[in-house]
């Protein structure tokens, strides 16, 4: 108890609060900028922490981490441009809400869901970290493969209009994830001999092209007068009681999913957001509402991606295993101060562990503060004339694409994918499943091949493990539910028709 009070008094000093808020601010801004990720920001700012004490340095970085994950949702809602990969699912309902004039409501919900998710993740980290870490270690390649397959079944939620084109789009995304050097044999795949493609298609230009430039093309082809977004009168920046009542189940589910998936090494915030969206849309009475601008479509992924922060800290602190790029950089921040995460951390530096716990809670409220402020001010940007905003968003897209690798080649890639997304959209093939496939593709393939290697080529490995089996059943249920529901609906209609004839 004394350690806890010491930690609280250490974190609640003005200087420490200022450091955390600075980290939050940097995180939120960087998260909102396309092309710059939270891990880049942490890597750039890591040297700044060398001259600080271990607690101060970690507070700065732990402020950036959740702030960056949340910040991505702001650009996703306002510009249909996910600033960070974990915000991909937020664009699906966030941008349609902004188009309906509800940008403030959307950012308000995104902030609240992120705050609650983040707090949930940290509480789990404090209470049952070692237990969850042991569970996470039971995940081998077959379990990861089935988990990713479950993530891919989100197509049923994303492409409710037409599953066939949804699947095609997802397959194209999976193929895009194949581009580059093969991770096992170092054979080049689909690179056309281009050095720039050897490390795969970069996320920034791809997402900017598919979402940002394609949307700009669609907008310019429409009437400019129609582009003027309606902006609601912002009276309240906090979600209404009704919104909270609607979204609470989605937030709770998202928080649990995010924490568990965050604890799995290699999974992370993006997969957590995808699966949370999938489960929420899949279990909804009217899944076809999702993607049209429903507030639960924001609450589910945002609570999950921020809960994954607490989850990701579990293997890091308890086992010394970094599950993502950001936590790998964070390990570096520990080691600079001669502190090694793992079981001994709880024995030798328990005071620091408690400072981290309290710091993460403060950081959650810190980024929420900036989130609510942006809910108030950011939608006002949409009031600007579209003939000025559209070219400036185009500039923002190009700079984001360039910033990914500092190369004009990436601008070319963004243009290519922008035109590509526009053309396939004209043919009725949706874009969001491409991103699902692209994000999950490398994980799906690597774990599929590793599983086959383990089983000597037998597919039964996916049916003999309990976690795999549960994932498989859930995947089938989520995929078949819309088909079953459509048939049921058709049956009811035909029954009604025959009744009316009588």
């Amino acid at each position, binding site marked *: 108890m004394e350690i806890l009070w010491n930690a609280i008094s250490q974190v609640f000093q003005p200087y420490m609060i200022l450091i955390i808020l600075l980290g939050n601010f940097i995180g939120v801004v960087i998260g909102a900028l396309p092309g710059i990720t939270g891990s880049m920001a942490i890597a750039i700012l890591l040297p700044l922490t060398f001259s600080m004490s271990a607690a101060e340095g970690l507070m700065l970085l732990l402020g950036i981490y959740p702030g960056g994950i949340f910040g991505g949702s702001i650009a996703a809602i306002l510009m249909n441009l996910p600033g960070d990969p974990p915000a991909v699912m937020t664009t699906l309902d966030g941008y349609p809400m902004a188009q309906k004039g509800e940008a403030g409501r959307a950012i308000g919900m995104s902030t609240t869901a992120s705050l609650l998710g983040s707090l949930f993740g940290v509480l789990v980290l404090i209470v049952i970290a070692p237990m969850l870490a042991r569970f996470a270690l039971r995940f081998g390649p077959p379990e990861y493969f089935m988990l990713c397959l479950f993530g891919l079944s989100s197509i049923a939620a994303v492409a409710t209009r037409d599953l066939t084109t949804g699947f095609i789009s997802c397959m194209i995304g999976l193929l895009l994830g194949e581009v580059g050097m093969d991770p096992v044999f170092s054979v080049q795949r689909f690179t056309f001999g281009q050095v720039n493609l050897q490390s795969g298609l970069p996320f920034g230009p791809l997402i900017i092209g598919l979402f940002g430039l394609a949307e700009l093309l669609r907008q310019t082809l429409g009437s400019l007068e129609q582009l003027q977004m309606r902006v609601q009168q912002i009276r309240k920046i906090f979600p209404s009681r009704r919104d909270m009542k609607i979204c609470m189940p989605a937030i709770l589910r998202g928080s649990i999913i995010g924490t568990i998936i965050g604890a799995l090494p290699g999974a992370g915030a993006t997969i957590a957001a995808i699966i949370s969206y999938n489960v929420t849309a899949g279990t909804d009475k009217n899944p076809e509402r999702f993607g049209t601008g429903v507030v639960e479509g924001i609450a589910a992924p945002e609570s999950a991606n921020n809960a994954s922060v607490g989850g990701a800290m579990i293997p890091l602190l308890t086992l010394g295993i970094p599950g993502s790029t950001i936590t790998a950089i964070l390990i570096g921040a520990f080691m600079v101060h001669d502190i090694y995460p793992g079981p001994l951390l709880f024995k030798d530096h328990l005071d620091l562990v408690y400072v981290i716990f309290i710091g993460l809670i403060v950081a959650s409220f810190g980024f929420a503060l900036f989130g609510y402020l942006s809910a108030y001010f950011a939608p006002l940007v949409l009031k600007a004339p579209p003939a000025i905003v559209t070219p400036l968003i185009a*500039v923002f897209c190009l700079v984001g694409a360039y910033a990914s690798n500092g190369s004009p080649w990436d601008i070319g890639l963004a243009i290519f994918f922008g035109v590509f997304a526009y053309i396939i959209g004209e*043919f009725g093939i949706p874009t969001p499943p491409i991103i699902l496939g692209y994000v999950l593709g490398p994980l799906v393939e690597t774990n599929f091949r590793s599983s086959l290697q383990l089983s000597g080529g037998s597919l039964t490995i996916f049916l003999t493990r309990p976690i795999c089996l549960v994932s498989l059943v859930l995947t089938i249920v989520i995929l078949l539910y819309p088909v079953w529901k459509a048939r049921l609906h058709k049956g009811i209609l035909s029954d009604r028709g025959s009744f009316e004839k009588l």
Partner: protein
Amino acid sequence: MRFGRFLSKDIVAGIVLILFSLWVIWEAREFAAAAARFRGISPALFPTILAVAIILLACVMIVRGLRRGRNWEFTFDLRRKNSHLALGLVAGTALYGLTLDFLGFLLATTVYALVFIVWMKGARPLQALIISCLSVAVIYFVFHTLMFVPFPQGEIFSLLMGE
């Protein structure tokens, strides 16, 4: 029987997807051969599975297209003024990418923003110039000064300075 009667988006998309998948299978054979000397699951297996799945789904699209009949309408139409603007956006963006190293970030980005604001009739040229300069300055400050993103300074300035 006129060909136009069957001109359906689903059929055309299905045929293109089948051709694309056949190309993927052909390519996969090549890197399967490159990895043949190693033991393990071939790097061609997964792309081939995906390509076969796309072919099957494309067949579903074609059958559906045949059932639905003619459907050949697009939002892009060269007779409309906005289509020219969209083409200009693509061409201008490509030109921006090509000239970025030569003109440098500040000049190229300012010109890009200025041209499009004026073309879209967002503001008068002088106002557009002020908006462009201010926006590019903010972007430069955030990305370059704060986040250390290296932007090209522009070969043109080196040439003008005689370096």
